[in-house]
């Protein structure tokens, strides 16, 4: 292929890949694709819905002026400004003024169906003669109070107080806020606004400017009112913006370190920084190709897959560096000839890397299969560019500075010196083995995802204060009542409420938000009607008891008429509530998951949830769910499974190497450095008390891929001293590049990035040291004190 054709093909390929990707990019992060069981998949889907629920997407804003009244007035002014903001979908500052009437119209006609959560037990007690007499006496006394004006209106139709009970349940489910001047005020005098944005909280490009506008609006209102205002907020978007700011702050340091380091390295080795761009090209094309294949097959790409896949750059960059340095040090030999000579070893390196990722995909989990496919396609694409599109562009013009040849020769001599000192030679891998063997049994895993992030304590404290202020229930601690139908889910939810009541009464659980406060199952409502109507002579006994207590005869004829009405009023349904102002209260309490339904009860308090779990024993398809624990368990399972798949992949790598070399020593020389590096890293972490998590494991996969490549390149170039020396130099440059590109992450403020930087940086350096050492130990010429050969 001529250089011009190669250039055209490369540019056209990149343009096509970018265009296809840009037009079709749909990204979604779906952890359920990595979950081990159908039950876990269902819980994972609910976990996602809880994270994406309106409750979770709401930003709570609290504003305090000099008095509660001025707080509410300031909040009203702020609400007016926010309602006009393009990012805002809805602002809620108080109760709907029409809500009491709506509640009356919805619930009063259906009051008898909502009388008791245990109708068979409680209704006979409520309607016994003694109970009726006591109630009548009590009601007569209560009519002496100022509230008689309102109470006497419903009494003739509701002497048993069914509607009172409905309102009492509402009150018990209410938060810590009270209405004032059309707004809501907390006990400490902050006015409260609930704000929903159009975009999800994690869309930082929208949320960050919105939060700045919010602060500016409060400052303007404070100045206009001539009183200082305190603003405190709670919401996921605050943490998302803070995380992005922290990362952005890191970027400068990381980018500076990596750019300076890589530039210096390429200037030394190649005499040109442009060579770095060349070296990056195959990896970038590989990733673009992998993204487009994923989009073509599935229509979308998983965020986890993409994050995993970008680490391929660290592996893929080894191949073009190997080619560039061999080409540069082989005077008079063009790129195509060099590539043809290196094709077997680069091809084998890519094949083993693909085999290790293929091991990740030999599983039932769609998420792992997707990562495997992405990696295989990405590496394959990078290798094709390296071996077929780059070489024509190199020609014979790539000339390395004289110091490169000197460096290569010195590296070759250093290895030769090592070979003549077998004890020192063996000490390296043995020392690594010792660290691994003594450290790994002490390894500690940390699967708490929260350990990967670190937020400003002041931000956390503000969030906690606001949550406590509004008695906000966490979406992370819930009881789920699952079923195949809405009514079955509601029936199970009724049972959940009955089990939680004693825990509320004894303080084991501080508070709940349950659909049961607003809606009972149709079965429970019908049972209430049936039991009430079955009470013998109820209308007559009510008339008698109340007349004896001093009520006018015939006053409760409306109650008698309601009891005898046929048919009874239809049960209250979820649809009735969704169509009313109560709809927004109902929405976060019930999910539809395909054919399945889930009623959600949110918890506050409950300690370690053991008492809650015990109280739910025996209830079918009821789960006590703590989101943080569930996610951590998923990631622990993912981490464990990744380790197992890495082991499986390693077996495939050994098989590929055995097939290629057909002899034990070269296969081991290629394979052992990667395993030894991984084990030594883990042992070293254990020795230094570093807890290991998923990011370390993912980074290990990349390190092992590079380790095998180093071993293969050494084995395949051992027959020819100049090639061997060129390989040593290419390994040094590859190691240095990866150290600067990934290793510089170690200065990040984010634990996840630091872990990746430390694992990759140390791992690639260990690989660079151990690969020649292991090769020399296993090489037959090492015994003779000669230069290595295969």
């Amino acid at each position: 292929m001529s250089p011009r054709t190669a250039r055209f093909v490369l540019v056209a390929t990149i343009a096509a890949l970018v265009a296809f990707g840009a037009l079709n990019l749909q990204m979604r992060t779906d952890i359920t694709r990595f979950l081990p069981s159908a039950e876990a998949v269902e819980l994972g889907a609910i976990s996602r819905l809880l994270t994406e629920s309106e409750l979770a997407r709401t930003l709570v804003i609290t504003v305090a002026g000099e008095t509660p009244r001025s707080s509410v007035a300031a909040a009203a002014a702020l609400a007016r400004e926010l309602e006009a903001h393009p990012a805002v979908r809805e602002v809620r500052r108080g109760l709907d003024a029409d809500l009491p009437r709506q509640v009356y119209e919805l619930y009063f006609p259906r009051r008898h169906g909502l009388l008791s959560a245990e109708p068979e037990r409680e209704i006979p007690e409520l309607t016994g003669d003694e109970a009726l007499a006591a109630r009548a006496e009590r009601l007569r006394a209560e009519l002496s109070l100022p509230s008689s004006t309102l109470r006497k209106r419903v009494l003739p139709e509701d002497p048993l107080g069914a509607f009172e009970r409905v309102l009492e349940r509402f009150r018990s489910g209410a938060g810590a806020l009270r209405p004032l001047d059309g707004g809501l005020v907390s006990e400490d005098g902050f006015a409260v606004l609930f704000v929903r944005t159009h975009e999800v909280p994690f869309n930082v490009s929208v949320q960050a400017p919105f939060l700045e506008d919010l602060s500016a609006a409060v400052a303007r209102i404070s100045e206009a009112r001539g009183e200082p205002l305190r603003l405190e907020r709670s919401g996921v978007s605050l943490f998302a913006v803070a995380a992005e700011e922290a990362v952005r702050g890191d970027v400068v340091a990381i980018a500076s370190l990596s750019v300076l380091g890589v530039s210096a390295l390429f200037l030394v080795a190649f005499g040109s920084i442009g060579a770095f761009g060349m070296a990056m090209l195959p990896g970038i094309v590989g990733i673009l190709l992998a993204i487009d294949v994923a989009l073509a097959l599935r229509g979308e790409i998983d965020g986890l897959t993409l994050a995993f896949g970008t680490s391929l750059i660290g592996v893929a960059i080894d191949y073009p560096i190997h080619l560039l340095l061999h080409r540069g040090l082989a005077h008079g030999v063009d790129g195509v000839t060099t590539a043809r000579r290196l094709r077997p070893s680069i091809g084998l390196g890519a094949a083993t890397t693909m085999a290790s990722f293929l091991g990740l995909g030999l599983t039932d989990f769609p998420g792992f299969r997707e990562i495997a496919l992405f990696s295989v396609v990405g590496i394959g694409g990078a290798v094709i560019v390296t071996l077929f599109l780059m070489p024509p562009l190199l020609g014979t013009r790539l000339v390395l500075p004289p110091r490169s040849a000197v460096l290569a020769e010195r590296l070759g001599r250093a290895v030769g010196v090592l070979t003549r000192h077998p004890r020192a030679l063996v000490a390296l891998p043995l020392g690594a083995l010792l660290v691994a063997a003594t450290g790994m049994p002490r390894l500690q895993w940390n699967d708490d995802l929260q350990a990967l992030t670190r937020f400003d304590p002041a931000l956390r404290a503000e969030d906690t204060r606001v949550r406590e202020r509004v008695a906000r229930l966490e979406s992370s601690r819930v009881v789920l009542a699952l079923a195949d139908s809405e009514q079955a889910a509601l029936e199970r939810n009724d049972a959940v409420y009955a089990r939680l009541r004693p825990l509320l009464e004894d303080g084991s659980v501080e508070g709940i938000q349950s659909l049961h406060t607003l809606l009972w199952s149709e079965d429970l409502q019908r049972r209430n009607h049936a039991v009430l109507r079955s009470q013998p002579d109820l209308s007559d006994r009510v008339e008698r008891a109340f007349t004896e207590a001093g009520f006018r005869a015939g006053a409760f004829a409306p109650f008698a008429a309601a009891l005898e009405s046929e048919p009874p009023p239809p049960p209250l349904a979820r649809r009735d509530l969704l169509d009313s102002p109560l709809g927004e209260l109902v929405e976060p309490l019930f999910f539809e998951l395909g054919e399945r339904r889930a009623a959600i009860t949110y918890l506050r308090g409950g300690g370690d949830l053991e008492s809650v779990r015990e109280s739910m024993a025996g209830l079918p398809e009821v789960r006590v769910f703590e989101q943080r624990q569930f996610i951590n368990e998923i990631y622990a399972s993912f981490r464990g499974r990744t380790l197992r798949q890495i082991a499986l992949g390693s077996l495939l790598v050994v098989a590929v190497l055995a097939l290629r070399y057909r002899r034990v020593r070269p296969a081991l020389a290629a394979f052992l450095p990667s395993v030894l590096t991984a084990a030594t890293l883990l042992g070293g972490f254990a020795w230094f008390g570093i807890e290991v998590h998923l990011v370390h494991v993912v980074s290990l996969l990349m390190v092992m891929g590079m380790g095998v490549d180093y071993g293969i390149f050494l084995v395949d170039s051992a027959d020819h001293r100049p090639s061997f020396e060129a390989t040593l130099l290419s390994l040094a440059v590859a190691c240095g590049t990866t150290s600067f590109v990934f290793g510089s992450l170690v200065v990040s403020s984010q634990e996840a990035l630091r872990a990746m930087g430390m694992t990759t940086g140390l791992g690639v350096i260990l690989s660079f040291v151990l690969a020649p050492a292991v090769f020399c130990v296993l090489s037959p010429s090492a015994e003779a004190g000669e230069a290595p050969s295969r």
Partner: protein
Amino acid sequence: MAGTRGVVARFHEVKELGLLSEPVESRGVLYFVPPDRMVRITESPLRTALVVDADQIAFHDGGTAPVDLSGEPTARQFVENFTVLFRADVGALRERYEIRYEPVARDASWEMRLVPRSALLKRVITEVRLRGDTRAIREIRIEESDGDSTLTHVMPVDVDRALTEAELAALLEAPLDLATLPGMQDEPEPQPAP
């Protein structure tokens, strides 16, 4: 009672309700601290308290947590009517009612009739009649739109009682602790006027 530092009064109330065959009576103590704090404690037939502290209205019945009525428009209207009356805020009274004032010639007493202006209040009350003397309001009669009526006899114990902050705090927080009711310990219960 304009300019008072505070009012402590006993009351005896009689309600004639269409629902009941006989009137129902209640007795209790009323505290008013201008401009807008009031505690109405009913001692019989039930021990309850209505506590008003500026914009906060709560009903205590000695059971579980007090019931917050701050957001109830009807409750707010009722309470504001009383506070306006007790602090003799003529301007605010005129906003809420059409007023007819009638001095009684034979003594220093007076009678006032108030007809609500607001639609919300008119749905519930047709008229409020007040009787008093130079010292204080003595009688409040409320005629409701459904024919029911409430007659409250007010027997001021002290028409210029300045409650201390400690007394006021105790009253607002624990209104049903009858043993600590300020100004009430040594007073015999007076009888309602004929």
